[in-house]
């Protein structure tokens, strides 16, 4: 099966500094790929390059289409839903308005999709008229994922969904991500610092260090790799 997302020799730049040094990443269609690495390794930069939010070179192919010179909003329109670092919630708007915004590019299915989201995340349904800024961290993460799903994307890109959340909530989130993978036809590219959870959930994994991909393989292989276990899994 051809990968739904393919990065070839991608470099990324902040100003004059090169921060990604020609990386190759692939996400299989229907699969979940995780990009692991420490702070500042370049995980978020990779996601931003995919969505056209940072200056980059190299080839980025999504379902056969080139993403390199497209604007962020055009890439979103093609079916790439990105849940950014920090959630990117519209805190001044209500929960339902946040969801409606996710459905901006798919107006006809919007209402039906919103109800489906309340099915996945009942707590959002309870708080639909509340300001998004009033939600707890875990609830905002659910809202961010729901907002992304409103776009009926082919690729879901998640930037550190576990960030700042209590372990129990993180487990819930990952259960939901798993359920979504099964019930919706969507591929997932996940960026995480929480290596053990991510490797459990994913099919494939890449390890990035200071802008270079240092290891790649199946998630199981990386989970059993003694180096990775020592550096990232703590045992």
């Amino acid at each position, binding site marked *: 099966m051809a990968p739904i997302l393919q990065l070839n020799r991608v470099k990324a730049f902040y100003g004059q500094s090169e921060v990604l040094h020609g990386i190759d990443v692939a996400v299989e269609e229907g699969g979940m790929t995780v990009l692991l690495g420490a702070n500042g390794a370049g995980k978020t930069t990779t996601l931003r390059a995919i969505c056209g939010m940072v200056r980059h070179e190299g080839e980025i192919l999504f379902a056969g289409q080139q993403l390199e010179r497209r604007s962020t909003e055009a890439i979103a329109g093609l079916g790439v839903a990105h849940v950014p670092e920090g959630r*990117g919630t*519209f805190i001044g*708007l209500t929960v339902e308005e946040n969801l409606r915004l996710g459905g901006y590019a798919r107006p006809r299915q919007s209402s039906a999709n919103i109800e489906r989201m309340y099915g996945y995340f009942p707590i959002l349904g309870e708080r639909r008229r509340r300001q998004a800024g009033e939600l707890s961290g875990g609830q905002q993460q659910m809202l961010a994922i729901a907002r992304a799903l409103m776009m009926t994307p082919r690729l879901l890109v998640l930037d550190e969904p576990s960030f700042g959340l209590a372990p129990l909530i993180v487990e819930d989130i990952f259960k939901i991500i798993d359920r979504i993978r099964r019930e919706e036809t969507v591929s997932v590219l996940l960026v995480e610092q929480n290596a053990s959870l991510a490797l459990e959930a994913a099919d494939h994994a890449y390890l990035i260090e200071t802008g270079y991909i240092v290891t790649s393989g199946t998630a199981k292989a990386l989970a059993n790799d003694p180096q990775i276990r020592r550096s990232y899994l703590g045992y």
Partner: protein
Amino acid sequence: MHQLLQQIFSGLASGAIYASVALALVMIYRATDLVNFAQGEMAMFSTYIAWTLVNAGLPFWAAFVITLIVSFLGGMAIERVIIRPVENAPVLAAVIVTIALLLIFNSTAGWIYSYTVQDFPSPFPDRPLLGALITTRDLGVIVVTLIMLVLLFLFFRFTSTGLAMRAAAQNPESARLCGISVGLMLAIGWGLAAAIGATAGIMVAPVLFLDPNMMGGVLIYAFAGALLGGITSPVGAVVGGLIVGVTENLVGTYLIASQLKLTVAFALIILVLVFKPNGLFGTAIIRRV
């Protein structure tokens, strides 16, 4: 007492004008963190367009609608062509650009239409109502402004474009991730602001008489009203504009002759701001370290 009420009502009418322009200022400020100093001159120019159409024989309301459409498109064009190059530049550069626009519009209007003061027709006859408490003209101004505000509220609250514009103003990056073209939203914002300004200009021209410097004072009072209400709050803009209008009128009638009216009115506004530095309804500009 009767005179007091009269002055309050007539202050509400001029306040409605200030409120409209203040609302336009707040809309643009929320979207771009920029005060559009050219808002008044753009409105004046739109009013001249309406005047030209009326002189060419069009009925008033037809000229009004056409002017609104032209102003909307013009506002969008100005945002894309004039403002876009300095969108990512230091704020002062953008401020200078809006001041430049102010000068260009003012001077061009003077060149095309001369500085002779012109009459501008009002769709409302100037008759006293409610036992001479308020004139039909003033009431008409207030009603038109109210209708415009309600339409804007409905637009922003219930349409997807309105929602997208609010999102783009609050969090442009997240808006792009939802597939919203933030640039287009900005342009629409400027277009709406221009249309609002045009409405204000057309409403005020019968009273102030049309000349290129007509909106200078209006802009200053509108700016004060927007800040009094809180530069980030549309409701504040309207309330602030109305308060400024009434205050200006009362100060001019009861306190001091027209020479120092502006100074005293401003002193009062600033006094309020000393106690509420972010305006009556504004939220503090939150600084994250």
